[in-house]
């Protein structure tokens, strides 16, 4: 479904990703693990078109997307839940959700999508006329995910949803991601928290200093010495 081939990404002269390759198959739950500054956010932003790779290519269902503007990539079916949620603070919950569905295809099905998101997060229905900035951290994360789902994506990218969330709201988020995945949405989750990552992941990539240093199924990764040392702390 998604193929990232040998991309090199720069901020000015500073190279942030070095020959990164990654694949995600339809229906999978893939987690990208990496510590602070590894380049996780950079990779997600490159997939969703906010950054351009200097070389390499990105394909979605076989079609190159690395030269498309971000809105075209959303139209193709990739939705991005940004790091730190990035809601529109001065707009209501409902307005934030509707903004996620202003792509031509999604707009036709806005009512259905809204119903789906409200059923997933009943609290958002209750809070629909409240300003986004007045929500609690957990509610804001739900709204960020809900907003991303409004475009009816095939692939959902999530950038560290656990940031600032306690264990209970984060469990809820993980449950919702399982549910979304069962409904057919492929998931690529970026995390630093190994505990959460391994709960969800079917496959894992490990990113360090802008390079993929390990990858494999969840079980392979759990046994990997490098990962044990660096992340699991055994």
């Amino acid at each position, binding site marked *: 479904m998604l193929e990232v081939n040998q991309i090199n990404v720069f901020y000015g002269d500073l190279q942030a990703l070095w020959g990164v390759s990654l694949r995600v198959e339809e229906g999978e739950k893939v987690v990208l693990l990496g510590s602070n500054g590894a380049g996780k956010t950079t990779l997600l932003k490159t997939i*969703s*078109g*906010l950054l351009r790779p200097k070389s390499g290519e990105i394909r979605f269902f076989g079609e190159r997307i690395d030269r498309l*503007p*971000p*809105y075209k990539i*959303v*139209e193709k079916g990739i*939705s*991005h839940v*940004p790091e730190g949620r*990035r*809601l*529109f*603070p*001065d*707009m209501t919950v409902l*307005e934030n959700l*509707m*903004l*996620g569905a*202003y*792509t031509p295809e*999604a707009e036709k099905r806005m009512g259905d999508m809204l119903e789906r998101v409200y059923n997933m997060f009943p609290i958002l229905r209750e809070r629909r006329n409240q300003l986004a900035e007045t929500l609690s951290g957990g509610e804001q994360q739900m709204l960020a995910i809900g*907003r*991303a789902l*409004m*475009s009816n994506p095939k692939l959902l990218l999530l950038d560290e949803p656990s940031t600032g969330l306690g264990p209970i709201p984060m469990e809820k988020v993980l449950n919702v991601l399982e549910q979304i995945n069962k409904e057919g949405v492929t998931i690529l989750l970026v995390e630093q928290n190994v505990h959460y990552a391994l709960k969800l992941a079917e496959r894992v990539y490990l990113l360090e200093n802008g390079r993929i240093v390990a990858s494999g199924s969840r079980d392979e990764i759990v046994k990997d010495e490098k990962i044990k040392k660096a992340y699991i702390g055994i």
Partner: protein
Amino acid sequence: MIGGSIIIQVLVWGIILGCIYALAASGFSLIFGVTKVINLAHGELIMIGGYVSFWLAVLTGLNPYLFIPLAVAVSSVISIVFYSLGFHKIMGAEKLREAFLAIGFTYVIENMAVLMWKEDTRVVPSPYRQQFIVVGGFNLGVDQLITIAGTAIVLLAFFFFIMKTKWGKMARAVSQNREAAMMIGVNVVRIDMLTFAVSGAMAGVGGALLGVILYLNPYMGLGLTIMAFTIVVFGGMGSILGAVVGAIILGIAQQYAVFFLGGEWSYAVAFALLILILVLRPQGLFGGGG
């Protein structure tokens, strides 16, 4: 003794000047809020709007208010050109480049106006020039009434557009978080262009109204830009309501300054108020947070 009615008369002039300022400043503020561009060529669109209505009214001998839609169209198209050929190409680069680009546009438009309409001062010929309505003991010119009503209608339509329509909401989303808007599929280039178009349209209305109640001159644009910028800082960067309220306050203050102190005090008083608010409330009248 200065009578109470003359005080009220000056207040009305202030409100009318404030209306023109509000049309200028809300567009200036919209562009800044959505694109972060400080469009120092914005005042030229007002000047052009005024001349379009002047020119067509003189040419055809018809009522100049009929040509407001054309003034709107021309100013709006020029504003889109500013964006597409200019600001779009350098957005995100340092602000100095935007400033020089805007100064370049200012000279081009000014020179075009001089070529087409000469340097003379012009007034748009209105059929209502000598007509007054007496309200509560003082005279209100029909043209002044039209300016106030026209401004109110345009601003209400503008607020409706920004707050209630899908495109307005997308523009607000871009202004609140451009990157997040991109991530959820907003075509930001199109929104930026729309923002310039809407701002240009309001400037066009402002120019057409201004040409009747004040006068036109090819070099007037820069002064209007400076006032729009001042008002936006005064009212709070990014706040449209701040721009409207600030416009009315500064319009009134300027007219009182002109009446009591003389014409040379007009800008001095506006800037004194700006400095005052920056000292007391650095974020401006309606500016949020820091």
